[in-house]
């Protein structure tokens, strides 16, 4: 699978969240959980996660790309934090509509893979 600019971090996150079941609209904002989970996902599919680089010298593997992409998605209103403790992201409807309109065609050859990775992400995040 050739790495393309389509596989930019924001798009990968949107594709993974798109496959979260309808009732699972929240996921933890805990950085350690999130970064460790994406680090594990990269072990499963290096090509899809090529744009995420990880620094493994810290207390847990961290990816600047993941931090920046989550901030971007929150800033652009694809994700929100509506819980009082601000410790969960809420997936907004814009994620699914963006995926349907802009990504589903482009990712058509990888939809099964994204669905599988999304399930694994849910397991890793404990949701």
């Amino acid at each position: 699978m050739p790495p393309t600019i389509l596989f930019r971090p924001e798009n990968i996150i949107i594709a993974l969240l798109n496959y979260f079941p309808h009732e699972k609209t929240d996921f933890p904002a805990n950085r350690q959980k999130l970064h460790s989970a994406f680090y594990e996902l990269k072990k499963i599919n290096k090509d899809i996660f090529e744009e995420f680089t990880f620094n493994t010298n810290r207390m847990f593997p961290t990816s600047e790309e993941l931090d920046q992409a989550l901030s971007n998605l929150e800033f652009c209103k694809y994700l929100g934090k509506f819980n009082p403790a601000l410790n969960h992201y809420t997936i907004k409807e814009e994620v699914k509509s963006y995926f349907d309109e802009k990504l589903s065609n482009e990712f058509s050859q990888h939809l099964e893979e994204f669905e599988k990775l999304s399930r694994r992400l849910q397991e890793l995040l404990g949701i």
Partner: protein
Amino acid sequence: MQEETSEIVKTPPYEISKIKNNIGKFIEEVVYRYHKRHIKSEKLIHGPLWGTAVLRDHEIAILDLPLIQRLRQIHQTSLSYLTYPAATHSRFEHTLGVLIQADKLINSLRFWPENRELLSETKLNARTNIRLASILHDCGHGPLSHASEEIYQFCDDMQALTGNGGPYEGNHPHEVLAHLIITHEKFRGYIKEIETEYDFVCDLDKIADSIIGKSKDDEKYMTQIVNGPFDADKIDYIFRDSHFSGLPLVLDLERLWYSITIDTVKKKKILVVKKNGMSPLEQILFCKIMLFSTIYHHPKVRATDCMFKGVIEYIRNHGLMLKDKKLNNATDFLWVTDNTFFSKAETTNDKKLHDMIHSIMYRRLFLRALTISIDTIEENTFGEYKEFQQLDQRKKYNYDALRKIAEQIWKAAKQPCLKEEVWVDIPSFPSTKETDDTFIQCPSGYKVLTDFFPSQEWIKNYIYHKWKAHVFCPATCQKEISKAAKDVLQSEFKFKFNDLAQKSCHI
């Protein structure tokens, strides 16, 4: 956008041996082509921020190397002194400040009896290694510090090192260059010589690793003094940058240092903070965000960094050189300091290059042509904003995409200046990721700082209310570029600007 589905152009793997070879040539110049003199005793050095420091003979020998002396010619906060006139402090001053703060932290840690063995000089050469790591931690910086790093991070040699699967994946480019210098056999040879001459022992691998934050689990605390969530580097730059910009910030440092101790958390021996040290930690984060808002992201500071990048791009585009280097490799930037950069204005025969550098020197700065932020885009079109915002990711294809957009703007404005003089600048969001690495001692066990206050929400507020992207250009064509930028960006990204996008630029 067109680029959205195009393939990344993959460059052939860069040979690591070639990078090491280039580093070796640099070491020959800045370590060996230098008349060594024997240092007879310790020396006292005085500074305006931290007072007096004592340096040992072998430390003076290393500080005297052109490798470190060149840091006197590299401004700590790039060209911010054109906005804050007193911010002329150098990487060299910062280096000494880090040494002093690292030493103070060691002293505070040794105040607690349980830590004395862990920082024992006889057992691990701890103090020697940490002090030398402080002296050497910024030796990989190029001209104007992070301004040049924004360019050489995308050079093929650096991508081979820090990119996906590279030996330094996820590390900062200047720290990688420092690591390569310190672990190079030629530098080892020099240190071997002075170890005998001054009768001391150090561990260069540990020193180099601590600069990139790497260490064994049972020695992580030593690395964290130089590269950790509240390290000496961060303390010095926060104090120094704010002090010399004339924007003093409050930080109860003494309280912080005496609140830190060493303990085992998650099988790693690390620095932890007692609960009474939380206030100064909060102050650190607050100060850091203030520095972004007042200095690092100030529109004039960003504009001058773009002017510098424009000069480098012009040199590359026209086959010119700086210090006999084409600036196509990250290692080329090691040979250049701020002085060599500015002196090019006087030695070049290229009038345009001369003028571009002079414009920086004599403060004929770029102006804002368009402001791009949450309050300059019409709310009902903000949904389309993601395509633009994601170009801030530090990736070469994003950098190239932004340069292509700038060129489109330049062409749409009928080329009123050099194409290297139009920039679309999207600053990266600040980060408070250190709050997840900072462990607080609580009666119930350890918690991370994030558990006590959600620093990410501070960042979110900063992003919503203060963060801005801009289009910059020379003053002579501000109006034309502004109009073209508005048209091009609206057509490329399908969002609509409101009047404030131009009014905030005084157009």
